[in-house]
Structures are given as C-alpha cells and as structure tokens.
C-alpha cells in the first residue's frame, strides 16, 4: 500500500537523523569530559560548536516529525513512534546542552588545576553513555533486551556519585585552596547525572513506543528512590 511505504520512508529518514544525533550527543559528552579532564580549551571550543550542530539537527528532526504527522496521519504504533522520536530528539539535544555546560566550566577553569586524578567523573560519563546506548537501541532497533541492565547502571551511578560526594567533602576539610575546583567537580558530576537521567527517560519512552505501556524503570519502578545526594 502506498500510504504504508511513504510513511515508512519518512520514519526511516527520521531514524537515520536520530542515529546521527545519538552519535553527536555521545561524542559531545565524551569530548566535554575529556576537555575538562585535560583542561583542553581547544577541545572545549569544539564541544561548544558541536552543541550548535546538535541543536540544528534536533530542530530538523522536529520539523520532519511535524510534517509526517500532518501529512500521513499516523495512528497506533506509528503515532507512538513519531511522538517518541520527537521527545528523544529533545532529550538528546539536552544532553548536548549539558556537554556545552561542561565545556563552559572547562573555560572557567582556565587558570585552575585539578587537585586529584579524575576517576569518578569519567566513570560517571561512561555510565551515562552506556545507559544512552541501551536506551537508543530500544528506540532505533526496537530492541528492549537490555533494558533490565539499566537498573544496575542506575545503582552503579548512584553509588559512584555518593562516593565522590563524600570524597570531595573529605578533601575540602583538609585543604583550603580548592573550593572552586571542588564545586566544579560537583557541578560536572551533576551534569553527568542529568545526562544519565535523560538517557533513562529515553529508555522508558522506548518501552512505551514498542509495547504501548507506560512503565517506570529502575529504582523508581521498584518504588525506591535514589539515595544519591542529588
């Protein structure tokens, strides 16, 4: 049927763009963390530019979704797909914004130095990216097989954040000259957590898109709430 294939064509176009957006978001988060780790101002500048690219692509996807809905009048699964694609596009855009913020902080650290080796923060970034990968797999390949792992990643992330919080508090008790950097660490950690949170949302949307059910995943699903300080 002609209607079906035209709609599928539009959906494929949008998916392709989402894949690209996922790649860019992942890259920007990774590069931002790298930039902060090495206090590389050049890399930070690239991340800021990448963020603009992410915003533009996200807007293109939004326009495509509106056009497809208007023209094709999708229902049921197709309608869910499109509304989810729209929300995902925004979530990925937000992750791009967090990367931008981390790059911005890198700029603010121009004359500062790290007071310890950065382990927790890159690890948090990795967890966020892993969460995002699993979530996007659900979105783009409609493969929900790894959704259960998200709970593990969430507790990992929680644990790591709590530990880092304590560690920095300890440092602040001992030293006097590191307040700015210490606060930056907390803030960057916060952005990683936000990115992971967005990824989690994406995963929940993936479940809705494929099954039609609105389910809460992870700790919230189990009724527990995160124990981390933020």
């Amino acid at each position, binding site marked *: *049927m002609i*209607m*079906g294939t035209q*709609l599928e064509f539009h959906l494929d176009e949008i998916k392709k763009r989402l894949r690209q957006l996922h790649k860019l978001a992942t890259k920007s988060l990774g590069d931002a963390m790298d930039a902060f780790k090495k206090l590389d101002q050049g890399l930070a500048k690239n991340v800021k530019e990448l963020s603009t690219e992410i915003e533009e692509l996200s807007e293109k996807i939004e326009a495509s979704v509106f056009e497809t809905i208007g023209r094709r*009048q*999708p*229902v*049921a*699964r*197709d*309608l*869910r797909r499109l509304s989810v694609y729209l929300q995902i596009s925004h979530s990925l855009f937000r992750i791009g914004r967090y990367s931008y913020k981390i790059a911005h902080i890198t700029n603010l650290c121009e004359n500062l130095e790290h007071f310890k080796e950065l382990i927790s923060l890159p690890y948090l970034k990795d967890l966020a990216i892993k969460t995002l990968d699993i979530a996007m797999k659900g979105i783009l390949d409609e493969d929900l097989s790894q959704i259960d792992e998200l709970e593990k990643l969430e507790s990992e992330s929680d644990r790591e954040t709590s530990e880092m919080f304590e560690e920095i508090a300890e440092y602040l008790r001992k030293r006097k000259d590191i307040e700015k950097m210490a606060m930056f660490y907390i803030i960057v950690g916060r952005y990683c957590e936000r990115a992971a949170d967005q990824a989690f949302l994406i995963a929940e949307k993936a479940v809705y898109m494929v099954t*039609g059910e609105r389910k809460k995943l992870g700790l919230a699903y189990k009724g527990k709430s995160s124990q981390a300080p933020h």
Partner: protein
Amino acid sequence: MTEFKHHIEVHNLSTWFGKFAVLKDISCYFEDNTVTAVMGPSGCGKSTLLRSLNRLNDLVPTFRREGEVRFRGQDIYETGYSVYDLRKQIGMVFQRPNPFPMSIRDNIEYGPRLHGIKDDDELEKIVETSLKKAALWDEVKDDLEKPAPNLSGGQQQRLCIARALSVDPPVLLADEPVSALDPISAAKIEELIVELKKDYTIIMVTHNVQQAFRVSDQAAFLYLGELIEFDKTERILEAPADERTEAFITGRIG
C-alpha cells in the same frame, strides 16, 4: 418497563444470508449519547450489523439470525415485537442521500404523519426543529415547498438527517453517511454528527479510518464477521489491543 443500562445491546448475534455466514457471535453494547464508529474492510459485515439493529435485514428473504439484539432491555427479534415502533425509535441515514420525491416540508412531515401527528402547528414546529438540528434550516427556510431532489448532495443528506430526526428517535444509525459526498459537505456533516451526540446515541459505519478517529468516542473493528476489538477511540488510536486492528488502522490491510 424493562430495566436497561444502555439503549442498544447486542448478545451473541450471528447472522446468515442463506448459507453464507456474515456475522459471527457478536456481543457488545453502545454507550448512550456517544458516537460509535463501526469500521472494517469491505465485506466484513458492518452494514449487516447496523441493519440488524433496526431489523432492516428482515427485508431480505434469506436472512437468518441467532442471538439477541436488545433495545431498552427488550429483544427486538422476539415474536410479537412491533418492528414499526422499533423503527420509530431507531432512525437511519443511508450512504446515498435518498430524499423522497416530494417537497422539503413533505419529506420531514412524512414520519410524524405516519405516527399520527395531524396538527398543523405541531408539524410546523417539527419541521423547523428538525431542520435546525440538521443545520439546514437557514438554507431552506424560505423554500420549504420546493422539491427535495433539487437540493445539492450535501443538503440532501442533511435533509435525510433532519427527516430521520423528525420522529425524535433516541438512536440514530448512519451507514457511511458521507462517503458519497464532496469533502466540504462531508466535513460539515461530520461536525454535525459530533454535535448531535448530545441528544442522540449515534452508531456510524465507516470504511474511512481517519473519519472514525475524527468523529467517534468508541470504535468497533469488524473483520470477516467477527468483532475483533471494541474500545474507546482514544485507546485504539494510541495502542490497539489486537494486531489485526493495528494492521487495519495503520493501513496495512483492507
């Protein structure tokens, strides 16, 4: 007076035309003051279901039926049930507009006269009310004596709606009421149907999925004579329970 929850309920209805089975064990009920869309691919039995509700299928000699259709709690197929009373309370609008070859006024007065109303003032009121309800009054109020077949297609269909409403039936059946009309007239009548549900229970057969979504509160999906799904339209629109329903509404079958 029998107790009833809904004006129309269907219990295990199966129908045949001769040896050919059309409807297979259908059970459902229609919420009052809503629009229910009955949809499905051609030949799935939607019109047959509709016509079973006002016993119009009785006109076909080979029609056979098992199961019940209850109107206000009473089985309309039981012996002794007055089919004329039934049809006074269940109105019908057809796919092709079919005004009688009389004046506009005579068309509307036909039903009430049949049922004994003779007083001219009363008839006058009925004509005006019915035409107003069908959003046709302003266009024809000065031309009530003109022959009805001279109206345009969309006007004719609104006239048929007014005619059906002239006897004030609580239930209105519509068999693809706009599929023979141009898009603008069709849109007007769709809006009209949504307005009318405040006062009437409307059951509409359509093969146009988008129309079903535009207009209905509940939707029934019929496929090969079986009732596959019957639920609130918003549910079916978002996430139908049966994959056949999904295949149909997304345009992959039928």
